[in-house]
């Protein structure tokens, strides 16, 4: 900063502006300070409440924070591979900890799919199926919810409220309800994730439609096209890449969601993961985590690559 020149005095008008600016600045700072103080109060209150209602207290349990690392050390490195591919373990003592070959899913007499690979495929299939299902119904609903295509505010409002409810309704409740009816298996998880996906994708889709270029649609209207023709030929071609991109983003989220739903009884890899962490089966836990981790990364990378091809570099925001 140059300090050699004397500070020029302000003219009267300049002084007024300067004073106003100072006042504004002071007010803004006060608001910022009040906001931060409120945030700090809410935070400390929350932390106190969380600590009070937790089973173990934070500072009592802190020394055990990294205990889970200890739960992840198998007897030797090859155990992870054995757990992942259901090979017999030399430590097998008949307990659940080392009974890897028991999970084999035999296709023929000799060829088998390892249990965790099969479970992972199940989770992945739940995610893909519900993404396609959600995309299909989201696609149908979104045109009814977009302001530029559906002039009737009642239909629009109804469809939007429906999508909001589908989105906000806790997945775990849908899964639990269908578990009670359909008994154990992956289908309750599929229904739960699908229903949520319809709401989430429908909302993203109708926002895309509302921001679309209306000129093709006007052209079709001028030539006398009916509603379905206008939507199909005027709207769908320009929004489809964005729809696909959002559906792929949703797929990433659904892989994670179906794992979680699986952990509460909905089939897939979630349940063996919960059990093996709970029972401290190191090799099994690590095998599942590695499978899950690599699947999630693979799906994320594949989706990012496809989205880049579909809509270019714009498509990198995450949506949930």
């Amino acid at each position, binding site marked *: 900063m140059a300090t050699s020149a004397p500070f020029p005095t302000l003219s009267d008008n300049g002084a007024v502006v300067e004073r106003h600016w100072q006042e504004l600045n002071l007010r803004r700072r006060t608001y910022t300070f009040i906001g931060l103080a409120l945030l700090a109060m809410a935070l400390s209150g929350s932390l106190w409440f*969380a600590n009070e209602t937790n089973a173990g207290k934070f500072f009592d349990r802190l020394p055990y924070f990294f205990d889970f690392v200890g739960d992840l050390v198998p007897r030797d490195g090859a155990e992870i591979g054995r757990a992942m591919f259901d090979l017999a373990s030399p430590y097998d003592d008949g307990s659940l900890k080392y009974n890897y070959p028991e999970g084999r899913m035999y296709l023929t007499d000799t060829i088998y799919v390892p249990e965790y690979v099969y479970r992972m495929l199940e989770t992945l*299939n739940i995610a893909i199926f519900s993404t396609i299902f959600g995309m299909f119904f989201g696609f149908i609903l979104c045109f009814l919810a977009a302001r530029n295509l559906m002039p009737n505010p009642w239909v629009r409002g109804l469809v939007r409220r429906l999508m909001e409810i589908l989105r906000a309704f806790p997945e775990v409740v849908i899964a639990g*309800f269908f578990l009670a009816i359909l008994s154990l298996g992956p289908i309750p998880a599929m229904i739960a994730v699908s229903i949520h996906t319809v709401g989430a994708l429908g909302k993203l889709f109708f926002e895309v439609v509302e921001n679309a270029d209306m000129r093709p649609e006007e052209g079709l209207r001028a030539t006398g096209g009916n509603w379905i023709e206008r939507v199909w030929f005027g709207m769908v071609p320009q929004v489809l890449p964005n729809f696909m991109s959002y559906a792929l983003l949703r797929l990433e989220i659904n892989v994670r969601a179906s794992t979680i739903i699986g952990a509460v009884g909905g089939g897939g890899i979630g349940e063996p993961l919960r059990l093996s962490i709970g029972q401290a089966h190191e090799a099994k836990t690590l095998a599942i985590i590695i499978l899950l981790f690599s699947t999630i990364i693979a799906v994320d990378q594949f989706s990012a690559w496809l989205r880049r091809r579909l809509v270019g570099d714009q498509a990198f925001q995450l949506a*949930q």
Partner: protein
Amino acid sequence: MTVNTMMNAAEMEAIAARHPHLIHGSSRKRIRSALIFAGIALYMIYSWWFFSIGQVLTNANWGIAGTYLADWVSYEVRPDIKIAADGAMQVVYPRFSPLGPDARPEWVKIETKTIERTIDAPAATQQALPKSSTFSFMAPKAAVGRSAEAEVKPERSSEEVVSRATISFNSATSVDVVDRTVTATHNGETLLIDLDPGRGVQPKGDLPDWATQKRPGEKITLAFGMTGWADVDVEKVSIHNRFPGWANFIFDTSSPFFNKSFGEVAGLIFAGERLDPARSNLSLAWNNILYNAEWQHLDVWTKLLQTIVMAFVGTLFASIVAFPLCFLAARNITRNGVLNQVTKRFFDFLRSVDMLIWALFFTRAFGPGPLAGMSAIFFTDTGTLGKLYSEALENIDDKQREGVKSVGAAPLAVQRYGVLPQVLPVFASQALYFWESNTRSATIIGAVGAGGIGLKLWEAMRTNSDWENVCYMVILILIVIFIFDSISNLLRSRLIGQKIH
């Protein structure tokens, strides 16, 4: 210069002939989209087979689904009419009946008479009356409902017993039990059923649509639709009368305020004598509401607050930690390729190890409770927010930064005045968005033990009979989500300066 932009048909065809690819599109593209759709269709068929969806859906117990759904918004009262071997009857309510221990509902009409009974030794009675042995030797606690005063004396005694019981479900439906004969009326049709200890349950005439009997002599089930159903057996007629609404939502049956009108309760609270000398009626009432045994209001509210707190603290900490790290990850801010890559891969790692895995680990570390869920959200979202923040940083306009740099500002001042004003609204908006969406995911990870309302929901669903509690919690969750949705939308639209959905 004027150009006639109107074309005649010949000109249009000429253009179409010159540029056929514009009009018809490439055949490759068409084949590709057809292939994609075929692929998707094939995949759906494959999934149908892989999960054997059709089979599961047909084997499902859809009848019970209706009952479970009805349980969300209604409740059943289940009096049993027990018929002893000598024909004496008794109306018994289950122990946790929503009507409380001393129920005399108007829809159950009872006529009584006094009879002389001879009761020998207890063992002999049990042999003679296997199902109705509780009749004479009932524990005082089980003697609920409008039962006769049973005397525990193994000798001759005179008792008052029920001679006729009439249950009116609604104006068109009723069940009348007298002298081992059940008269069921539903929508104008009447069914007479004889309860013969020797021959079993014998209907007189054909069974109407609403009555089913699997084998002759076995029990008959009368289904009256939404208003309830009844099981008719030789020794017992079980009534299930369904009422809309939630039973005992405010005061449970053990509360002194139970079954009192709003006016009575208000009168007691503001002017009544103290029911419990130790404290005022207001605090007693409040305490009774909080510890309502059926609805567990205090517990539900605590768990809901835990869920909210988990999402709030988790997201806040995540954005606080992600904030400095994202400057290291952005390649236009920190010009060090190794450092960028290390930070970015660290974010990817946190994000890709699923929230579920973190939740399970931290449940082991902290024990079940909100600390585990909070940490899980914190770890996952540090990765997600870090990634988003560093992408926002990499997309900033460089001109402002150069301007600040050109007047000779220190590196920190360049970030503060050249970069932060551009990205701070985006950062805050992203954090708000994740706060809102984490409120939703916190419900789910709660179900694996990471604190919050998730576990409570899951436990309520597991019993398959507390669906009204599930409904209550779902409504609370939906309210919270909609409120937070609106707050977050409002704040974000003010930050970014336009309406974001």
